[in-house]
């Protein structure tokens, strides 16, 4: 078996996590909401930079708070979730933008070219594996819940709890990609491969495989081709993923 170069290991693990979490996100019809939620990382990164803390951890903290907010609104209040997500999370992007100087802001939004420190790589791998294990173990419960929360209840599933766990796994996945892809583009790595897979797949198994494969392919292509083409890694990765999405549309729609 060919050895995976060290600087591809974390991106591949992140891509696998993004592909799996993306499958569930797209099947839950959370495509737009999820993109907005990922924006909440920006003020967290901004505050972390201001106080000289690790930006990724700052982003992760903000993401956890943001997802807890979404979950609380959904289960404890009668406020329409859709509107709140639209307002709160775009405002978060604006607040984050005010907190940060130019170069930091660009890197936070679109990803940084530098490699992570080894401690960060290790933590990232642990987090990616945690997301992957969760996505596979909780898949049955997540799938029944997205088909019908009522059926999930009669199957003995704690619907509020599984939804919270899913949102936290989603937040962790976004945080994993902050350094590679940035606040604006990580949501795309979660959504685009899964949206492509949904178009092509006829079963959950196919959905899972195609989504992970496309996320990995785009990540590897972005990482390896960026230096050759003198382009930024993050945007190139997403352009590759989007190209695959449009290519998949060439396939006649299944009936």
């Amino acid at each position: 078996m060919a050895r995976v170069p060290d600087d591809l290991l974390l991106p591949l693990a992140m891509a696998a996590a993004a592909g799996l979490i993306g499958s569930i996100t797209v099947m839950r019809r959370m495509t737009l909401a999820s993109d907005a939620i990922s924006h909440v990382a920006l003020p967290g990164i901004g505050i972390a930079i201001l106080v000289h803390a690790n930006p990724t951890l700052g982003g992760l903290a903000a993401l956890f708070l943001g997802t807890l907010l979404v979950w609380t609104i959904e289960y404890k209040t009668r406020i329409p979730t859709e509107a709140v997500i639209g307002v709160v999370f775009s405002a978060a992007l604006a607040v984050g933008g005010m907190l940060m100087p130019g170069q930091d802001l660009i890197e936070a939004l679109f990803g940084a070219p530098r490699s992570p420190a080894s401690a960060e790589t290790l933590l990232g791998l642990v987090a990616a594996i945690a997301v992957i294990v969760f996505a596979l173990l909780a898949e049955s419960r997540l799938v029944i819940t997205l088909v019908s929360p009522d059926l999930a209840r009669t199957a003995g599933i704690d619907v509020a709890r599984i939804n919270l766990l899913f949102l936290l796994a989603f937040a962790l996945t976004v945080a994993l990609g902050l350094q590679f892809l940035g606040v604006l583009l990580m949501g795309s790595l979660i959504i685009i491969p899964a949206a492509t897979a949904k178009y092509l797949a006829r079963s959950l198994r196919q959905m899972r495989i195609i989504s992970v494969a496309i996320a990995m392919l785009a990540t590897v292509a972005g990482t390896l081709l960026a230096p050759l083409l003198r382009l930024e890694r993050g945007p190139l990765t997403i352009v590759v993923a989007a190209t695959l999405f449009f290519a998949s549309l060439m396939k006649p729609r299944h009936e």
Partner: protein
Amino acid sequence: MRNVLEVEHLSVSFGKTPVLDDLSFKVEAGSSLAIIGPNGSGKTVLLKALIGAVPAKGTIRWAPKTKIGYVPQKLDIERDLPLTGLEFLRAKANVAGIAATEVSRVLALVDLQADAASQPIGTLSGGQFQRLLLAFALTGGPSVLLFDEPTASVDEPGEEGMYALFHKLQREEGLSLLLISHELSLVYHFADQVLCLSRRRAWIGPPVAILTPERLQEVYGRPMKFHVHDGSSA
């Protein structure tokens, strides 16, 4: 006789609109209760309250260790949701902690063909999808089945077969049934008790006592004819 369900003073309202008001009834273990009534009388809401999906006042007491199988009237499923019937049933088996082989037994029981079960669930016909939902409810061996019959039954000829299946499950596995039905003649023959809901009040009793022409006229606001298999019409 032991009761599988005891409901006391159950009330459900949406905002200020009462849907169910001070409803009390009991269901004996292994018996079948048919729930009838005109549109908007709260039949579906009652089932949802019983599974805890809508907030309700009053007492709902299931017998200890009751396992509920629920067949909803309809679900909004996208046509292109990449999930096959088999995967959906295996997910239930997985959550219930039972062997995946149980899935084929349940599919045979509800008479859903293997090639239909391997299609994405959003592409199934109304009748096939209802059988899949019934298979989902039966996976994991429920002790009570809650069945919400669609208003416009998609494949009419299948309906009587469904009731025959319920009867078999009841006889062989001691299943208790709570079913919303629009087929009064089937109710007359299969149900042990009938719960008749109207917007004003509710009646419960054996079919002979509840399905009287006068009561049905009062509840539905028009004469309801149904076929009693001894050759006469009620």
